[in-house]
C-alpha cells in the first residue's frame, strides 16, 4: 500500500510538472457551496465557459507555442479561515499564473495578503466591498498584484443616491443591516448624499439584525416620517422581509439598494412584493445584442439551466478570464509577475460580454485605488425586479449597451 501511495505521489509530481510546462495554470476560488453559492458557482461557471472557448480555439500562443488553460478549483465556503488556507496553498503552488475569484469581502481580507506577499496576480471577482481594495492603499503598498473586476460599493452607492435624486425624491429613509456590509453601506450612502449636493433629506435611519423578520416598527417610522423611498443596504432574506412588510402596511414607495437585491433569496422570498425594486447591476440577462445572446445561450446550454443563478457574477467571471487571457498573450509568458505588468497596461481592447474593455487597469497608485479597479459608472446599469427576474429599469441603459457594442469607446 505504501509503495502504491509513493508511486502515485511521484507520478503525480512528474505528471503535474510535465503538465505545467505547456499549460497556463489558473485558480478559480469562491463559495461553491452554502449561502453565497449562487454567486460563487455562477462566477466559476462563467469563467469556465470563457476558458472552454479559449481552449477550444487552440489556446493562447505564448512564445510561439499554443497553450491551454488548466483550471484549479477551490471552494472557500464563504468562510474567512478557509479562504486564508486556500490563499496560502495557492501562494506556494509552483507555476501558478493567476487567481480569479472570491465573492465575500471578508475572504479577500483574510486571504489576499498571502497572494500579494508572493506577488501572485489575482483578479477579485465579484466581491464588491470597498475594504478589499482600500486595505492596500491604507497600508501604502507600492506594488500590488491584486486587481478587482466588480462594481465596488462606491459606484453602487453613488448610483443608488443618484437614482433617488433623478426620481425627484426629497425625503428618504436609510435601511441597513447590522453587519459590516450594511453599516459601511449606510456610510457610503450618507457620503454620497453629501457629495451629490445634499438634495435628499434622511428622515429615518433604521437598522435590523440578521434573523429579524418583523420590520413593522422600522417601516412605520419611515412611513410616518414621510419617506418617499427606502434606500437599503443589506444581504440575505431580511431584505425580502422589508418588502413583505411594506406590502402588509400598505407602504408603496420604491426600494433602492445594493446588488444583493438581485439575488434569488430576495427575488424569490419577496415574490410579487419585490416588483419594482431597483439595484445596480453590471449585467442583465436579456439577449439584447448578438454577443450577449451568445453568452446567455452558451451558459444555459453548458449548465442546463433556464436562468443564470447570478447573471452579474457569471458575466464578470467570463470577462475576467478574457482580460486575464489578453494579459497572458501580451506578456508572452505564464509568469504571474509578467502577467501583472501586462494587466496594468493592456494595449489591445478586450471584447467582453459586459463591455469592450479598453485599458481597464493602470499602474497601481496607493493614492488611487481606481488604478486597479476595472469598473466605472459607465459599465454599470440600474436593474429592476420584475416577476422573479431582473430586467433593465431604463430603456436608455439598454439602448446604450446596444450602441456600445457596435461602437466601442474608451474610458
Amino acid at each position, binding site marked *: 500500500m505504501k509503495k502504491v501511495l509513493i508511486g502515485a505521489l511521484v507520478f503525480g509530481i512528474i505528471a503535474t510538472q510535465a503538465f505545467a510546462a505547456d499549460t497556463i495554470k489558473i485558480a478559480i476560488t469562491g463559495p461553491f457551496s452554502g449561502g453565497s453559492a449562487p454567486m460563487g458557482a455562477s462566477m466559476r461557471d462563467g469563467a469556465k465557459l470563457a476558458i472552454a472557448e479559449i481552449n477550444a480555439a487552440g489556446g493562447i500562443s505564448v512564445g510561439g507555442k499554443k497553450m491551454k488553460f488548466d483550471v484549479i478549483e477551490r471552494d472557500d465556503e464563504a468562510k474567512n479561515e478557509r479562504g486564508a488556507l486556500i490563499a496560502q496553498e495557492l501562494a506556494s503552488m509552483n507555476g501558478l499564473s493567476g487567481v480569479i475569484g472570491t465573492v465575500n469581502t471578508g475572504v479577500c481580507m483574510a486571504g489576499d495578503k498571502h497572494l500579494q506577499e508572493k506577488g501572485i496576480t489575482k483578479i477579485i471577482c465579484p466581491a464588491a466591498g470597498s475594504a478589499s481594495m482600500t486595505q492596500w492603499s491604507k497600508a501604502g503598498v507600492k506594488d500590488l498584484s491584486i486587481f478587482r473586476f466588480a462594481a465596488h460599493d462606491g459606484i453602487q452607492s453613488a448610483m443608488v443616491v443618484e437614482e433617488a435624486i433623478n426620481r425627484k425624491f426629497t425625503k428618504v429613509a436609510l435601511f441597513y443591516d447590522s453587519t459590516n456590509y450594511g453599516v459601511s453601506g449606510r456610510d457610503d450612502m450618507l457620503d454620497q448624499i453629501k457629495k451629490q449636493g445634499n438634495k435628499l433629506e434622511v428622515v429615518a435611519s*433604521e437598522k435590523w*439584525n440578521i434573523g429579524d423578520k*418583523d420590520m413593522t416598527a422600522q417601516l412605520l417610522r419611515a412611513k410616518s416620517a414621510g419617506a418617499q423611498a427606502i434606500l437599503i443596504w443589506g444581504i440575505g432574506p431580511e431584505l425580502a422581509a422589508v418588502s413583505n412588510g411594506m*406590502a*402588509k402596511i400598505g407602504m408603496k414607495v420604491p426600494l433602492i439598494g445594493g446588488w444583493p437585491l438581485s439575488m434569488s433569496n430576495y427575488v424569490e*422570498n419577496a415574490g410579487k412584493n419585490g416588483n419594482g425594486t431597483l439595484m445596480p447591476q453590471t449585467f442583465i440577462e436579456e439577449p439584447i445584442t448578438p454577443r450577449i445572446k451568445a453568452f446567455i445561450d452558451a451558459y444555459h446550454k453548458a449548465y442546463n439551466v433556464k436562468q443564470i443563478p447570478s447573471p452579474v457574477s457569471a458575466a464578470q467571471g467570463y470577462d475576467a478570464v478574457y482580460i486575464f487571457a489578453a494579459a497572458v498573450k501580451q506578456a508572452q509568458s505564464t509568469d504571474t509577475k509578467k502577467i501583472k505588468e501586462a494587466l496594468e497596461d493592456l494595449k489591445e481592447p478586450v471584447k467582453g460580454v459586459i463591455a469592450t474593455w479598453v485599458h481597464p487597469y493602470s499602474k497601481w497608485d496607493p493614492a488611487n485605488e481606481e488604478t486597479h479597479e476595472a469598473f466605472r459608472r459607465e459599465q454599470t446599469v440600474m436593474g429592476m425586479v420584475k416577476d422573479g427576474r431582473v430586467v433593465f429599469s431604463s430603456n436608455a441603459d439598454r439602448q446604450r449597451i446596444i450602441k456600445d457594442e457596435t461602437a466601442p469607446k474608451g474610458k
Partner: protein
Amino acid sequence: MSASGIAQLIVSGALMGLVYALVAYGFSLTYSTSKSINFGQGVLVMFSAFCSLTLLNVGVPYWLMVPLGLGIGALLGLFVERAAVRLALEQKSEGWILLTIILGLLGFSVAENIWGRDDRPFPTPLPTESVQILGVSISPMEISVAVGVFAVMGLIELFKRKALLGKAFEAVSADRDAAELMGVSATRTVMLSYALSGGVAAMAGILVSPITTVGPTLGSVLVLKAFSVAVVAGLDSGFGVVLVGMCLGSLESLTSFYVGSGWREAPGLVLLILALAVRPTGVFGKATIRKV
C-alpha cells in the same frame, strides 16, 4: 403617531410574540414532567419546518402536510428524549443540558448539509393580501399564527385536564415518586411530554415559516426569545407564556419604534434580568418549597 399606528405596532408585535410563546410552551411541557428542557428546541423547530417543506415539495398537499409535519416533530422529540435526556434523568445528573445542546448543534449541521444554508420561501395556501381590522392591517398568515397557537395550546391543555393519559401527565408533574407508586409510568409520561413538545415545535415551524422563510438559522433567534418568555412567565406555567409572549412581542415593536431599531432586543433581556432578580420562579410560576 396616530392611535391606529400604535395599535398596528402592538398587534404586529403581539402576533410575533405568540410564536415565541409557542416555542416557550414546548419548554414548559417537558419541564413540568421531568424538570428538564431541550436546549435544542430551536433546531427542532427548524428541522421540522425543513421536513415539512420537503413534504410539500414532493407533492404532499398542504392540509396533509400539517399532521405529517407534527408527527415528524413528535418523533424528533422522542429521539431527543431517548438520546439525550433519559439516561441523564435516570442517573439524576444534569447531563441533559450538555446533551441537548450537542444534539441541537448536530441537527444544525445535518440540516445545513441536507438543505443547504439558503433561506427558502415556504408556500402557504393563504392569500397574501392583508386585511384591515379597525385600521390595523394584519396578513392572513399572522391570523393563522394566532389561530394555530391557540388551537394547539388549547388542545394540549384540554388533554392534560380531561384525558386519562393527560391526568397521568399532571400527576407526574405534581410528584414523580408518588405517581410512580400509584402505577403511573414516569418514563412513559416524560416520553409523552417530549413528543408533545416536539409536535409543538413543529407547529411553530409550520406557522412561522411562511412569514420568516426557512433556513438553518430559523430557530436560533426564536429560541432565545422563547427562553426569555419561558423564564419570565415561569417554566411551569401553561397559558402564562402566551401573555408574556404577546407582551414581549409588542414591547419589542414599541421599543424599536420609539427608542430606535437598534434597541429591539433590549426589552426581552431587561425583562429576563428583572425576572431572575425579583421573581426567579416567573410571574406565573408557583413557588415550590423543596423538602429536604
